[in-house]
């Protein structure tokens, strides 16, 4: 088996991956970028090249801002492989991936994991019904294909929720209602961090503007609710929400859920990178130093894949990580690393200054992170309910791995991506231990399900 060799292999082509690739290329490193999507941009700048030709103004400025970066990337000598599913990353800096069902392998002097974020699971009653999708899905459908759903109900909290609703409204798509689950107390908690906001007002004002325009548009806006659930037998019939201790019903056929994003963990964890629980963001983050170097030699993690800070921060963190990798490869000096990373660090610190405010404001209520109703499905793949998890804990289950063998929770094709965080928090709560102690699933290769045929095809290459 022959592996192609590169100085740097980057997994992911969002702002972090692309920025790193462009910079590394400028310093004469050979770079391979493996991207799961069919075009560069990640989720934030998804389909940006395609939309460039149309005049879809409703996509907004923050989206269009990504274009120069993608253009630089296209002009570079970086070897870009789209539609590549990375299914194995080893500590020995070898990457296995498949394209169109055929496997390939490559070795890198340095590896950068820039796999971005995923949406946080939203385990409420009825979230597995047909007609319930994530708000991120609504945005992908809109950006990539101009496909929308009229009279849908949007439920949740977080900047991305307001962004997609704002895009819908700007594009003239009627929305039945927005049910805002931002906990009331968050506004006060966020105020304590308002000092940081002063350093980056643009960011915050944009968020307020979206929200203000949503309210101004006359769309039904429901807030201060204490619970929500989705009804229906096979598909969605209605959303119910509890406001001032009264349950109210809203008939609809399509619901979009969102409560923030969390790092894509499986890739870094499978390579053995250390993680920590971040209480403010209520999720696991990958441990990295100021240059994005993880606990595993030669593997760096940048952008939202290490901790959530958004697209602009991701671009800076990607560039900083690239400089460090170039230094490790002896392509630049230690002094160069320091000097060249300065402007990126400056921009990054401006972005980071608003995080405490944003994180506190949009931290989802614990009742939406750990389901309350025993019948709520926690693991979508294996259809494991909260009741089953509690039962296992009752008979001695102590952690996520044991829970797998007790209930199959986390054993399905998504490999715990849609239940892992809930499981950590449920275990912590039920066992009255800290999240760090409760732990997370052991991420093992393959990172993504692969067929035997795909595995076999590797030996032929």
């Amino acid at each position, binding site marked *: 088996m022959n592996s192609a060799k590169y100085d740097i292999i980057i997994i992911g082509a969002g702002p972090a991956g692309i920025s790193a690739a462009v910079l590394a290329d400028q310093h004469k490193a050979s770079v391979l970028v493996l991207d*799961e999507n*069919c075009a560069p941009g990640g*989720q934030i700048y998804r389909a940006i090249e*395609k939309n460039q030709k*149309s005049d879809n103004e409703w996509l907004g400025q923050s989206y269009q801002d990504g274009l120069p970066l993608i253009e630089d990337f296209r002009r570079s000598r970086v070897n870009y492989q789209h*539609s590549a*599913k990375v299914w194995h990353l080893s500590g020995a800096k070898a990457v296995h991936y498949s394209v169109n069902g055929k496997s390939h392998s490559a070795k890198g002097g340095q590896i950068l994991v820039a796999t971005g974020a*995923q*949406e946080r699971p939203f385990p409420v009653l009825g979230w*597995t019904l*047909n*007609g*319930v*999708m*994530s708000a*991120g*899905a609504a945005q*992908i*459908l809109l950006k*990539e*294909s*101009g*496909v*929308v*759903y*009229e009279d849908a109900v949007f439920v949740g909290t977080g900047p991305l929720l307001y962004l997609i609703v704002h895009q819908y409204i700007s*594009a*003239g*798509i009627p929305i039945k209602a927005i049910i805002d689950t931002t906990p009331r107390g968050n506004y006060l908690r966020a105020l304590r961090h308002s000092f940081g906001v002063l350093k980056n007002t643009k960011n915050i004002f944009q968020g307020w503007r979206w929200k203000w325009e949503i309210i101004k548009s006359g769309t039904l806006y429901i807030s201060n609710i204490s619970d929500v659930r989705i009804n229906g037998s*096979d*598909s969605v019939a209605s959303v119910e929400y509890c406001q001032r201790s009264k349950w109210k019903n809203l008939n609809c056929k399509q619901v979009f859920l969102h409560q923030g994003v969390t790092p894509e963990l499986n890739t870094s964890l499978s390579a053995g990178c250390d993680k920590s629980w971040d209480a403010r963001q209520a999720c696991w983050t990958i441990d990295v130093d100021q240059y994005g170097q993880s606990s595993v030699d030669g593997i760096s993690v940048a952008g939202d894949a290490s901790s959530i800070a958004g697209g602009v921060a991701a671009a800076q963190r990607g560039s900083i990580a690239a400089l460090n990798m170039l230094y490790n490869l002896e392509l630049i000096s230690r002094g160069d690393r320091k000097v060249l990373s300065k402007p990126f660090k400056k921009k990054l610190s401006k972005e980071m200054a608003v995080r405490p405010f944003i994180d506190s404001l949009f931290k989802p209520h614990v009742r939406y992170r750990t389901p309350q109703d025993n019948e709520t499905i926690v693991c*979508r*793949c*294996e*259809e494991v309910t909260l009741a089953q998890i509690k039962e296992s804990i009752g008979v001695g289950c102590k952690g996520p791995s044991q829970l797998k063998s007790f209930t199959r929770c986390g054993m*399905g*094709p*998504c490999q715990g*991506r*849609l239940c892992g965080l809930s499981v950590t928090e449920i275990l912590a709560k039920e066992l009255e231990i800290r999240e760090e102690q409760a732990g997370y699933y052991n991420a093992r290769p393959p990172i993504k*399900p692969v067929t035997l045929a795909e595995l076999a095809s590797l030996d032929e290459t």
Partner: protein
Amino acid sequence: MFKSINSNQGELITIYFEGKTLNVPKDYNVATALLWAGVCDFRETTLNNMKRGPYCMMGVCFDCLININGMDNQQSCTIQVSDGMKIKRQVINSSGKK
């Protein structure tokens, strides 16, 4: 129902869902094409026979699994449509047999 707001959908190609002919934009992925054509029921869960369809559209949740050209477990939100593609609802019972 899902619908498109783009006035020009570009070239259409033909795919088949459960034997029915669907003309869909060439640059859609399979999940988008089916949703756009009014199909939201992609598969049945093995345990409780619940109907499922796409949830995340970004390759994370695996709820969009479907049978494409005779192969089960195809992650339809990550696969482009192609002319003549034959798609079927995925039903696998817990013993793994059809």
